[in-house]
């Protein structure tokens, strides 16, 4: 542990991800369709990383794609799916139903308590809920603790310390200061609780620019910074771009069918491109720049979601 000293932390994506060992516990920043660390996810798949233990709150294509690529051993999220719009997460669902991944489904509040335990240097924290839920059946590691004052029995949850947190931010400087827009989701908690933070950013800017925008996650918590434009695509990274609903629909369709269709998606967008520049070229500049037009008018914004 200990803070990261102030130094230049800019590295390439491949180098940043190469440090992640098979079997690592990976915290995924962002949530649902926002600020998912997709550039890092794609690079993990390209590098053939295996047996990952994923933790996060509510997630979608980041988890599903890693599961589809066979990179995952254990999923510990509060939700994996595409909401009412695109429905269940196809690869995650299939892997859960065939028991090829361990489903350690959790709750946002429980995860928060477990991360906070690490942040506070404590071996456990108590939570009040959970007792009425079968979620406890998925977590034999939970315990109980009795309040010494009230006698109330509470669920005790152990500290959770991810090996690596993968975060994506619109702005960062070379020292690792990051500016995020709301929702921050668990990114701040992951940054403090994880042994190592790898951040991808839309744009590297000066420290002055980032201080003016507001530092959400400070440099001393960040180990590596990678400039990765459209690094959250097909999730959103406001203020730069909205999520790419068409692309997500394309992915979920391929993942539902599975087999060659899913392989085709992976080949086109992950294995078949050398890097993120290749990914952007494959998605196409026209599509990518359209996602940035949300800010022009309400009609443009709405138009992205029809």
């Amino acid at each position, binding site marked *: 542990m200990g803070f990261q000293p102030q130094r230049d932390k800019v590295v390439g994506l491949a180098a940043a991800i190469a440090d992640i060992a098979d079997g690592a516990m990976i915290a995924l920043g962002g949530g649902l369709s926002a600020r998912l660390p997709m550039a890092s996810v794609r690079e993990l798949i390209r590098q053939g990383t295996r047996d990952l233990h994923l933790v996060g709150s509510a997630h979608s294509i980041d988890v599903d794609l890693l599961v589809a690529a066979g990179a995952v051993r254990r999923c510990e999220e509060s939700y994996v799916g595409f909401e009412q719009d695109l429905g269940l997460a196809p690869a995650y669902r299939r892997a859960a139903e065939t028991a090829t991944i361990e489903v350690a489904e959790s709750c*946002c509040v429980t995860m928060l308590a477990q991360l906070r335990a690490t942040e506070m240097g404590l071996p456990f924290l108590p939570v009040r809920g959970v007792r*009425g839920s079968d979620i406890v059946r998925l977590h034999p590691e939970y315990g109980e603790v009795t309040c010494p004052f009230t006698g109330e029995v509470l669920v005790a949850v152990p500290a959770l310390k991810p090996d690596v947190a993968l975060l994506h931010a619109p702005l960062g400087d070379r020292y690792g200061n990051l500016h995020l827009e709301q929702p921050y989701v668990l990114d701040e908690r992951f940054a403090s609780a994880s042994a190592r933070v790898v951040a991808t950013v839309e744009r590297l800017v000066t420290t002055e620019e980032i201080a003016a925008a507001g530092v959400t996650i400070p440099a001393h918590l960040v180990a590596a910074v990678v400039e990765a434009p459209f690094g959250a695509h097909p999730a959103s990274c406001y203020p730069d771009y909205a999520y790419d609903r068409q692309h997500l629909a394309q992915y979920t369709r391929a993942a539902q069918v599975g087999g060659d269709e899913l392989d085709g998606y992976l080949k086109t967008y992950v294995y078949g491109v050398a890097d993120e520049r290749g990914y952007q070229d494959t998605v196409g500049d026209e599509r990518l720049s359209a996602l940035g037009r949300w800010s022009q008018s309400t009609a443009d914004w709405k138009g992205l979601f029809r």
Partner: protein
Amino acid sequence: MSTFSLDEWFVVLLSRTIRPAETVFHGFGSPCAQVAMHVARRTHARDMTLIEGAMYAVNPDPPFIPPTSNDASLKRGAAYSMRFDEFFDAAIRGDVDRMFLSGGQIDAHGNTNVTGMGPSQPGFKVKLGGGGGGCNLAATVRHLSLWSSRHRSGRALVENCDFITDMGHRTPAGDRTEFGFTGGGPQWMVTELGVFDFPEGHARLTHRFPDVSVEEIRAATGFELRVAGDLRTVAPPSSAELSALRAVDSLGVRRSEFAPAELERVFDHDPAMGCAC
């Protein structure tokens, strides 16, 4: 004479479970609840504190409701967005008055399953998305408004949930008092067939839609159907409610929750109808 559709009526009924001055939250992937909250805030509960799903934005005025719960459009007009931890802390200490919850399965005690169908070992028969923060929040939020848009399927309201993600009034393991839960549990449940309350912690049909009979409802309900002595038909939406709803949900994201046949249920609207809530 103008008309309105079932999905609109459904959302209006959900919105009426909100009382003035309440602090109300919906989870992600819940367009009906999401739209309902905005309808309430524009009609009978203008002083409510509306906390927007996955954005945790406080009292936003979104230009439209997008099909995902953490799009930036959903914090437009909000002076403040809570941090993740700030919201969940507030909810677990009892500062949130109402939360909307749904589930692939719901039983008579208001237990909900959003985790999976069938046994969990070795793998679920059908793996659902998961519960977000529900398994803790259901313990401490003051009141829960449940909903199901798939009641008629016969698979949504069940005798026993295969897996209890979020606890209602009681489970085989105990009740809320035994667990020290500080929230009151499910208060209302709205389905596309009718409305339920929970006297003594058991669902009871209090209202039905005018185009649905009690027998149809009984046939679709997997648990023993209790019916209120003064069963009524649901009160129609007011013009104010309909126009608020149509303004808020111009993309019609609420419709994604319903089977196609339900969306064809259309009703005549009496424009003289004030707010009946």
